[in-house]
């Protein structure tokens, strides 16, 4: 019977193999059962329910995903407009574009914060208290930063994102988007600190901010409903 069991993926066998073999020992499979087991093995390979592959095949969380992707797009618009239309500050056309940039950044921050609240309330059982707190910190830090939160807001965003991304990884998003978001956030906070340190005279580090919105878009595109799994004894 082990030949039929070998058709299943390794992660499936690790989780169900022993009890499945016990079941087959208790009731010798008929020809029809053997065909059913082969179909089951094909299903387990095409639509994995256990192991690492299960996340990649998990259903998407559409509402949270749309909020984060649109929020990330608005944050991208905020940074692109902000970087393209730097000074002369007294020019009314530049002021209009900077207002548009600010509005886009605020709207993007609110949408990402809403998505993170949704994720924290829906999936706290998966991402844990640290993930939920990280999400709330990041979201409120983003909105706070739009209202002149300064260094405190940056710290909230940085600390919150590190906690959030660490808990999202492998649960709601893959390793790459989680890592990209963490590194990008660190670079953006460093850029703000560098620009603030030179009293906004050299805005070159500000170009790093261009990566922030796309990092959120990447996370949004990969957001999936987490997989509820029990530890295998």
């Amino acid at each position: 019977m082990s030949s039929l069991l070998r058709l299943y993926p390794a992660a499936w066998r690790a989780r169900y193999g022993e009890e499945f073999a016990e079941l087959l020992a208790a009731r010798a499979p008929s020809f029809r059962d053997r065909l059913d087991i082969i179909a089951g093995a094909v299903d387990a390979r095409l639509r994995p329910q256990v192991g690492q592959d299960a996340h990649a095949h998990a259903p998407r969380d559409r509402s949270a995903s749309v909020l984060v992707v649109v929020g990330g797009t608005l944050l991208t618009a905020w940074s692109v407009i902000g970087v393209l239309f730097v000074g002369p500050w007294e020019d009314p056309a530049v002021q209009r574009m900077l207002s548009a940039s600010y509005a886009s950044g605020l709207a993007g921050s609110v949408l990402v914060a809403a998505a993170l609240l949704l994720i924290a309330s829906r999936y706290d059982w998966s991402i844990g208290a640290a993930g939920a707190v990280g999400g709330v910190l990041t979201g409120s830090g983003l909105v706070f930063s739009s209202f002149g939160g300064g260094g405190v807001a940056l710290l909230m965003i940085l600390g919150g994102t590190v906690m959030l991304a660490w808990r999202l990884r492998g649960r709601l998003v893959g390793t790459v988007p989680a890592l990209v978001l963490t590194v990008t956030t660190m670079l953006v906070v460093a850029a703000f600190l560098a620009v603030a340190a030179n009293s906004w005279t050299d805005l070159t580090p500000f170009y790093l901010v261009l990566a922030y919105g796309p990092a959120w878009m990447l996370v949004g595109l990969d957001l999936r409903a987490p997989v509820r799994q029990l530890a295998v004894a």
Partner: protein
Amino acid sequence: MTEPLGEIGRFAEPSLFILASLSEGPKHGYAIMADVEAISGGHLGPGTLYAALARLERRGLIEALEPEERRRPYRLTGLGASVLRAQLQGLSDFAKTGLERLGDAR
């Protein structure tokens, strides 16, 4: 409430029988298979049983208990009981409407 089983696709029917079987108490794979075959009057293959069990477990509708020797019992979770109740209520309403219409047609 019907969504958790709806997204299970072709395993929705065996899943409903499995939830109904576990509603009277925890059972391991073989006992579930025998019970489902008794209450449905049909055949339940081992491959289908475990494809459905894996989906139900992943969605938190059932949970695995500590293994007893090499057999692992499963039990219905609170969410599983709510989903089962909603599904059965839906089937009951459907049966009632269908029977009433059949009665009207006679």
